[in-house]
């Protein structure tokens, strides 16, 4: 496991350790063409359309055809999807346990059809040698409901357009694309002619899986596209949060970890052609028909979560329920919204709960006054149709006087659903509340384009917090009260009467 830490104590600097050339900004070039030093010998792309966003995994065998050892592999996206790419992660497919490669966006200062990420190999690839890259990412807001408006009881269809030839900066010898649909109902899809190397129909259907290819594209120039569109049934809502704000507040005195999340939710599915009809909705929910409207979300909470609430701008949402669950089993917060959320409708709300701090916090081995906190980075509702988050702001509010704050996002051998550490912005600030004098230390982490795959990602934070810091508040309050008493005594003793003495 590689350790990315941000030493952010007082200066608030981001200093990634053990990262090769991480802070080197890639210079913007007026006309950018990556050096042609690689060749993709074989490329297999898996596109998963089962959720409300696109999940793609590209496995590509890369060969260095240059003379020098190379370590920078350029990954292009067309500029209209570039901003929708999230959770980009690249690993060596042969050695996944070695962790993710460092990836960063190339900043171009001119408009271009393609924009690039650059993947830095941890050790340069020698000429003629090969490496298998596993590139995985999500594409948010890339599924378009077609037809764009439907009747309330109609079924919803989504269309997805992509290029049959995977866009790459380098020539690709063979490639194919596998599509996984939520169901077998795929009424419209592009059929190619004379592209496939082997015989048979293209695409090849197998249940809910389509395969385009394999194609021999060694003669095709890099960047050539072949548009393919598929349209498939998707009866679930497309849950999109334009913003998720998540506050985690640590209290040593109360032994409590308070979580509050604020969602700005939207259903990106088909909008209603005519207006909402309550009669139809009553009938369809009575018959339990599938609907593209979001009626309810299930939010699993850790066992032992207490005091949950679900409120919006006008107060408590009385239709929700909390099932505390059995000991050591997850509790469930059932968020039933005030009204069903149809395509294009919004709902912003706030939920929160408390946990016992002991299961998240322990003293560090290194020092007596040093603590290690391990909390989920995001949690979010669990739904089969998935959820996408355009912007996520996580604020970790540490006790007053915490110093030396370092954080790290836990990585395993599989993807944690988060982008690389340098795609997450972080800063430290102060936050004054509940009779604070100095203000609490707040670590803010911001990320874009996340999906519910990041649900189980963990955030580890270490900080120093001495006993004296803990006693600051009682001292302050005592001193304040004493000052009030003293003032009252003093004022009471002043004789302001105008009578003669």
């Amino acid at each position, binding site marked *: 496991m590689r350790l990315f830490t941000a030493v952010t104590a007082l200066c608030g600097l981001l200093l990634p350790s053990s990262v090769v050339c991480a802070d080197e900004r890639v210079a913007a070039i007026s006309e950018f063409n990556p050096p042609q030093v690689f060749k993709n010998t074989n490329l297999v792309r898996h596109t998963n359309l089962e959720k409300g966003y696109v999940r793609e995994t590209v496995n590509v065998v890369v060969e260095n055809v240059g003379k020098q050892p190379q370590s920078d592999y350029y990954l292009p996206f067309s500029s209209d999807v570039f901003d929708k790419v999230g959770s980009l992660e690249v690993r060596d497919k042969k050695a996944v346990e070695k962790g993710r490669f460092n990836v960063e966006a190339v900043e171009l200062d001119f408009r271009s059809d393609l924009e690039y990420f650059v993947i830095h190999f941890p050790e340069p690839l020698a000429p003629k040698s090969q490496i298998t890259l596993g590139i995985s990412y999500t594409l948010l807001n890339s599924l378009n409901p077609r037809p764009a408006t439907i009747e309330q009881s109609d079924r919803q269809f989504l269309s997805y357009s992509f290029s049959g030839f995977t866009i790459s900066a380098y020539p690709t010898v063979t490639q194919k694309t596998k599509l996984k649909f939520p169901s077998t109902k795929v009424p419209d899809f592009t059929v190619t002619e004379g592209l496939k190397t082997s015989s048979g129909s293209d695409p090849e259907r197998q249940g809910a899986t389509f395969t385009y290819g394999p194609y021999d594209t060694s003669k095709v120039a890099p960047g050539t596209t072949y548009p393919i569109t598929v349209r498939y049934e998707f009866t679930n809502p497309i849950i999109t949060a334009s913003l998720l704000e998540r506050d985690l507040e640590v209290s040593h005195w109360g032994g409590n970890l308070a979580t509050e999340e604020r969602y700005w939710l939207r259903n990106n599915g088909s909008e209603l052609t005519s207006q909402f009809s*309550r*009669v139809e909705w009553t009938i369809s929910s009575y018959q339990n028909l599938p609907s593209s409207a979001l009626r309810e979300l299930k939010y699993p909470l850790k066992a032992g979560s207490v005091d949950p609430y679900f409120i919006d*701008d006008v107060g*408590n949402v009385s*239709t929700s329920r909390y099932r505390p669950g059995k000991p050591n089993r997850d509790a469930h917060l059932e968020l039933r919204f005030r*009204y069903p959320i149809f395509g294009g409708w919004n709902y912003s709300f706030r939920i929160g709960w408390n946990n016992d701090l002991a299961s998240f916090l322990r003293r560090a081995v290194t020092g007596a006054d040093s603590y290690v906190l391990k909390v989920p980075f995001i949690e979010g509702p669990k739904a089969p149709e998935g959820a996408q988050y355009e912007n996520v702001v996580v604020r970790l509010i540490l006790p007053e006087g915490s110093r030396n704050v370092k954080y790290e996002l836990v990585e395993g051998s599989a993807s944690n659903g988060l982008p690389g550490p340098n795609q997450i912005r972080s800063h430290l600030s102060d936050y004054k*509340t*509940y009779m604070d004098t100095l203000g609490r230390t707040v670590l803010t982490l911001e990320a874009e384009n996340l999906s519910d795959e990041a649900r189980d990602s963990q955030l580890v934070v270490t900080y120093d917090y001495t006993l004296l810091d803990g006693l600051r508040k009682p001292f302050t309050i005592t001193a304040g009260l004493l000052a009030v008493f003293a003032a009252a005594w003093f004022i009471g003793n002043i004789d302001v009467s105008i009578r003669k003495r």
Partner: protein
Amino acid sequence: MADAPVDALLKGSSGKNTRGLLRTIILFTIAAAAVSSRLFSVIRFESIIHEFDPWFNFRATKYLVENGFHSFWDWFDDRTWHPLGRVTGGTLYPGLMVTSGAIYHFLRFLTLPVDIRNICVLLAPAFSGLTAFAMYLLTNEMSPSPSAGLLAAAFMGIVPGYISRSVAGSYDNEAIAIFLLVFTFFLWIRAVKNGSIMYGALTALSYGYMVSAWGGYVFITNLIPLHIFVLLCMGRYSTRLYISYTTWYALGTLASMQIPFVGFLPIRNSDHMSAFGIFGLLQLVAFAEFIRGYVPTKQFQKLLTSMIIITVAVGFIGLSLLSISGVIAPWSGRFYSLWDTSYAKIHIPIIASVSEHQPTAWPAFFFDLNFLIWLFPAGVYICFRDLKDEHVFVVIYGVLASYFAGVMVRLMLTLTPIVCVAAALALSHIIDTYVTISPKQAQAKSTESSSESLRSSRSPVVGIYSYASKAIVTSSVVIYLLLFVAHCTWVTSNAYSSPSVVLASRLPDGSQFLIDDYREAYYWLRQNTPQNAKIASWWDYGYQIGGMADRPTLVDNNTWNNTHIATVGKAMSSPEEVSYPILRQHDVDYVLVVFGGLLGYSGDDLNKFLWMVRIAEGIWPDEVKERDFFTSRGEYRVDDQATPTMRNSLMYKMSYYNYNSLFQQGQAIDRVRGVRLPAEGPQLSTMEEAFTSENWIIRIYKVKDLDNFDRDHMSAAAFDRGQKRKRASKRRGPRVLRTE
């Protein structure tokens, strides 16, 4: 005597301290009881603003907190009364909002992040604790008995007549105004008793605060002069009166004129003239008193008579001239309705349509005051036994407030404090008589007075001295008090603790089931309509839409423009052809109606519909006629016997549109009015249903845009239904749909 340690605590200087401590503890307990008995709704539901007016106050407070005091003072609100807008900063009593804002900023200063909503919700209970304390002070001025003040404080803390306007969430002007009312009276009594300039000035300050908080300040403006006037008539003029009144009037009037909404009313409005007149009268009386010292009696009599005649004549002529020329504003409609209860019904339907302006029903007195209402006359009688200046005040206040409480339901609130004072006086008198006077003292007294009396003339211990009578009286008092507490708790819990935004009902298994349709619909509006979509609804819901849905409204509970309200009433009570141009002209995007037919919710718009008709008829008597909504037999019906005018009215159509598709053919039932509806539901062509809440309480309709092919909506809808176009299109009628 018996217990030495107790005696040590209760006698001498340490006894004084002990009693003081005990009194403080009791007062704190009373305040705690007052606060906690108002928290039923928070515990049962949630921390939420109740009813209608509080939503405006809450919205104004949020505006104050967000934009600062100066922009609040100059606030022009273009999100209400579209397209007129409202000069909100100049047409409200800012005291309530400024108080909450000050508390909010104070807590922020202590870095306590208390939400402004929670401050607003809990303001009324917090101030009720202060009211109890002010009541203690006021009653202490009336009676030498230490128990009277504590009893009055306890009564005030839990009496339903006050709780009805001060439960948690009832964030209205009365929340702080009753405290200020009582406190101002306390300071006034102090000022009159001592002839103190300081207390007079404090009264004026407290009065100024009261003016900033509630329109009911006029009650004080008239009661204090009346107190002075009665005292003068009783020949009780003294420099004390002169000092306290002139100080209060001069400073108080200046203070009240600082509020933009009040402005120059204190010198122009008839409601304030009595205070001004008494001020003048008091100068004359003082002058007369001054002259009396220098002039022989006989000449003084002559001088006085001529002076009185001249003054009265000049005053009367001047007043009537000013009234006729309009410098002094005429009496307001609400004032007239105080004297003639049927005045409003005939002349101002908008005042009569408010339930709290109705005359009080007799049981309401017992409901709101319980056994205090029959202790009240006894208390007033006790005041007569020892008729000092302050007792005169109690008598006047009692008489006036009883009358007003009988005229208007909401004025029960002003009666409550004086009932508590009087009842506490009476009850403390009883308790003191029966509990503290011991027979030995009485006997000692009698032996002192007639030491030579015969043994046979010494009566046995009877009457109030006997233990039996003491036991009976005290135990019955205790029982009454216990019953009072039980009654208050019951009334508070059952009658006054419903937020009315959320409706509670019980499921068969006894668990609570919340009907949350209002918030469902308002939140839908807030989230899924454009920020500036104009919502038309009856004025009752204006404040709630402004507060919860955050959308501009046409009319709201401020009811300052009767014509605008009548316009909405006309749109609701006219056929679609007439309503559509009205709605288009007012930029209306959505129309919201409340319909209780599915659930049996009786407070819906169809039950209020006749008020809309009446108010509209007041402005357009030729176009809207109340008679047309009644059947030939004079019945108000919505079923298949309903009149054509009723069935064609927009309100009827919007209420029942699509309703029968929820039932089997011909089985549609309106559960509020208990009737079966016509098999064929109404057709709407100029609007479309946009949202209906879960239990159909709120129905929102979108006003259609103009037709793409320039047809009128009727023929467009007919075309969509596949009907043949009628040949009647050539007919030139008054029905005009296009607005542009």
